[in-house]
């Protein structure tokens, strides 16, 4: 138990010492949003100069740990003294009522069975902490279409071939297997699509 300003770089980013570059990157982004200017979680806890100081500590930690060279020399300066802090950054692995099944992948949603419907896509996305806007930015698929994918408003979507492409891009963007997700989603699309008509008129 140490105050923030006595913490080492790993403790600042809240990662164990053997965290890989991806983990460092993820932890950095999370901490940055936690201690950002208008963060919901911290505005009542830290103010003005303090929050700037924290951000600076975070930036320094990230600068040192994200570069292999500087991280190595920092590690040797820490010495072998204390083992890595017993904190885990990752969302705890998925667990079932049956014997706990452990997965090392953060934000994993392998516990769900069945087809990838819109709601499951949304759950998978939220679990990875990704907003639709971010997917839209990265995939160049309009965020309204992404919304329709999740809401299964098939009639609002362009022809089938595009839908499949959208799903693949969406899935890949959140780290799912694009081909199998698309296959699963399109099964549902094919079953449901004929039942949905584009409605030009409300009511009867």
């Amino acid at each position: 138990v140490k105050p923030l300003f006595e913490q080492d770089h790993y403790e600042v980013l809240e990662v164990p010492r053997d965290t890989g570059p991806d983990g460092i990157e993820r932890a950095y982004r999370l901490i940055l949003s936690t201690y950002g200017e208008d963060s919901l979680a911290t505005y009542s806890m830290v103010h003005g100069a303090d929050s700037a100081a924290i951000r600076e500590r975070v930036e320094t930690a990230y600068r040192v740990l994200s570069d292999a060279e500087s991280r190595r020399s920092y590690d040797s300066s820490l010495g072998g003294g204390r083992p890595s802090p017993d904190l885990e950054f990752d969302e705890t692995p998925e667990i079932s009522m049956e014997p706990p099944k452990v997965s090392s992948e953060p934000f994993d949603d392998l516990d769900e069975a069945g087809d990838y419907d819109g709601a499951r896509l949304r759950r998978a996305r939220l679990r990875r902490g990704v907003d639709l806007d971010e997917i839209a930015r990265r995939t160049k698929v309009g965020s309204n279409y992404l919304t329709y994918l999740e809401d299964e408003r098939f009639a609002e979507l362009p022809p089938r071939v595009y839908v499949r492409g959208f799903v693949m891009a969406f899935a890949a963007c959140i780290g799912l297997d694009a081909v199998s997700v698309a296959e699963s989603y399109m099964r549902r699309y094919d079953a449901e699509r004929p039942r949905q008509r584009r409605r030009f008129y409300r009511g009867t």
Partner: protein
Amino acid sequence: VRRQAIAIPVGGGKGGVGKTFLVANLATALARAGYRVVAADVDLEGANLHTCVGVPDPGPSLADFVARRSTDIRELLVDTPIPNLRILAATHGSFGAPQPRQAERVRLMRQLRELDADFVLVDLGAGTHPAVVDYFMIGEAGIVVITPEPTSIENAYSFLRAAFYRRLELAMLSHQVREVVALAMDERNERGIRTPLDLLREVRALDPEEGARFVETMRAFRPRLVVNEARTAEDVKLGFSVRSVCRKFFGIEAEYLGYVNHDEAARRSVRSRRPVVESNPGSDAAIYLERVARKLVAGLGRPDPRADGAS
């Protein structure tokens, strides 16, 4: 040999964040998984847990315990439509019914822990008054419910701080140290003690042995966080952020149990007075709630009831 029940208090400081909703659904999820569960409502003023689990008029309730019509809460448990789930309701029968006094709270908590059940979930009222916060000491696995809004987050920090300080007050032996703890409970104290880490510094300076006990108490305190009414990825991350604040400023290791998304199915379930995990298990909210329940159980190391055998 019967094990003690695992008591899980559910609080959060602010009213309307979904404490009762969560208690009703977690209790139902655990009962459906085969555990024997009691859900207890200790909020005599805003009590309505019984409604959420489909018991319109519970009859006996905590009010009978407070009014000394019964001294044994086992007599006050009521069955629910959900197999394996019983409740201790808290109806507000008479206006101005008193909240239990501290000695009664202590007795109540002891009796709750001794119930013949696997889990006892305790639905706390709102606020950070000792009459509320003390119930958080009933078990180590207390859950704090937050929603993604400033008022909820602020109250959650106040709640955690109050819960931790009350616990500390009981753990500290020296009179002098206890006085400093009492002082720190006032958030605007003149010594500038804002967080448990500030307080630890003071306590260490006064008495290193008490400092060691302080750290022990800190380590044992592992609140669980649940974000309710999550709508965006930002909301989902909030649990991690609050956990980070607990760690960096309070020195407290919280566990992020998970989140429950904003779902119309959940709203409808409340209106139909049935837990959503039972009435609409395929809904988004139910899937998230089941996930929280599984994670809660896994962290508590209670074996699968179905693997237990008939012994």
